[in-house]
């Protein structure tokens, strides 16, 4: 066999490009998906603007702080979350996955690059949408003097990875059932309430905060924004980083087990 002249990741770059090409075919779906995200952000910002119409502070946040928080969290939420793997369980259940499994390509890297393609495209639109939201709501960013850009980037990357693995886990349901929509729906509902998308989590009662922190959700937007806004103590950074790493490793291990068990159960045809 001829020696390969291909750099290792070249095939995945092609996967990424083709994913874009495919998305561009269904322009309307993409535009509607973005519109939905935009309206969701717009609604959250509008609701909080109304709350502050007759008061200067609410739940310990000044209007500027809250608008800034919601503005940043909606931007981040769009980067960390992804819908690129929504079809995975169907692909597995129907057996379409077979065409990938028989090829010399790493399925997870391939899905990872699909996710990356989705995120890059979304990021471009998020910038555009954020500009529109910025001119409507005029948040005043108050960033702390001491900045933690590298930690912030690392936390965003870890959150995106956690989200990716959770989506892979939902996709794995396809090895047993076509019914992954229900659990995923529940996950997104929980996420909206516990990742800090609609409100900062520190306005919740202590006991609920404690429960929420037992899940991976607060690490999927909330802590990053708190770090950016200087609302975290420096001594909180290490425990949060370790917790995120623990979630990442734990979820990878669970996923590996589920995937291996699923593959042995795979019928490659629809059940």
């Amino acid at each position, binding site marked *: 066999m001829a020696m390969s002249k291909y750099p290792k990741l070249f095939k995945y770059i092609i*996967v990424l490009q083709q994913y874009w090409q495919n998305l561009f075919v269904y322009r309307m779906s993409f535009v509607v998906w973005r519109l939905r995200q935009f309206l969701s952000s717009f609604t959250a910002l509008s609701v909080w603007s109304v709350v502050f119409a007759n008061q200067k502070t609410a739940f310990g946040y000044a209007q500027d702080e809250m608008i800034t928080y919601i503005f940043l969290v909606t931007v981040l939420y769009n980067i960390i979350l992804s819908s690129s793997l929504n079809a995975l369980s169907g692909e597995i259940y129907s057996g379409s996955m077979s065409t990938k499994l*028989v090829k010399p390509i790493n399925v997870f890297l391939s899905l990872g690059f699909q996710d990356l393609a989705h995120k890059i495209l979304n990021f471009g639109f998020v910038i555009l949408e954020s500009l529109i939201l910025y001119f409507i709501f005029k948040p005043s960013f108050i960033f702390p003097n001491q900045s933690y850009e590298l930690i912030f980037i690392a936390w965003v990357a870890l959150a995106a990875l956690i989200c990716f693995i959770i989506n892979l886990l939902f996709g794995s349901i396809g090895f047993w059932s076509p019914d992954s929509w229900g659990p995923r729906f529940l996950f997104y509902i929980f996420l909206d309430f516990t990742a800090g998308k609609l409100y900062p989590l520190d306005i919740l009662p202590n006991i609920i905060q404690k429960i929420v922190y037992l899940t991976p959700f607060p690490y999927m937007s909330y802590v990053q924004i708190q770090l950016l806004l200087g609302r975290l103590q420096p001594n909180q950074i290490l425990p949060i980083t370790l917790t995120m790493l623990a979630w990442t490793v734990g979820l990878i291990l669970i996923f590996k087990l589920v995937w291996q068990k699923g593959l042995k159960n795979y019928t490659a045809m629809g059940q």
Partner: protein
Amino acid sequence: MSPQPIIQVKNLRRHFKVYQKQPGLMGSIKSLFKRKYKTVKAVDNISFEIKRGEVVGFIGQNGAGKTTTLKVLSGLLFPTAGEVSVLGFDPWDRKPEFQKQFSLIMGQKNQLWWDLPAMETFLLNKAIYEVPNDQFEQSLNKLVDLLQVRDILNIQVRKLSLGQRMKCELIAALLHNPQVLFLDEPTIGLDVVMQKALRDFIKAYNQEFNATIILTSHYMDDVKELCERAIIIDKGKLIFDGKLHNIIDKYARNKILSLVFSQAVTKQKLEKFGQVKEHKQNGSAYTATLLVPRKKAAAVASDLLKELPVEDLNIEEPPIEAIIREVFQSGNV
């Protein structure tokens, strides 16, 4: 010296657990709390070996276990028991060095990107299989010319006809020049002209690359034209493995006697010679077809010539598909 087998299957079993729902709404409600499962033995203790360059036809009814066997050989399904080796690899390990040397083509599953032109999938496969540029250009040009699809390469796959799509599927699967091909119903749904074109192409590929091919098909013409050897599977068990023409010797109980008479002959008269399959008059031509036991065929033919106004007589073997149909219908395995 005969070549070493490159596919070895020993005591392979693949069982599936299948959910059994009781009928009606009550059945659905009960299934929410308790489900009954049944074990289906899709492949039940089969063994065979295939040598390099062989083209083997897998014959069997729907659900016989043909596709399941191909999927185990491709590494898609985990065997419940038994040993499988393809090109010296355990398919389940799904090693890239193994995957670069075979292709699985399923007539009912696409690998082509549905919304993009076929060319995009070819480029993707070029990258995935790490095919060097010059080899890619050469293989692509050759395959495209052989299958006459040059003018459709840049049209969205979903706008192509079934035949055009199947040709593009074949190209996508062969660009890396695989040594082993697993073809699962490659001609399904195609018209007879297209079926013939694909068969010719598969035959040419086998000859040029000395490729080993396993083919499943519902069309006996595919098997008859491409395969010297056939493996018959029924209810997960291997019931025949050998030269295709040996199926006739093993299973055909009758021979077919085609008769043309110079005068009308009644059906009753014919029935004492054998089973009358056909009896008709076409203008001034009187014809009949009889089924007679193989060993008695010559004697019956001689009696017919003596006793009836026979103008023409032919003794033929029944078509292979009829024999196989009879084997499955009678359960005579």
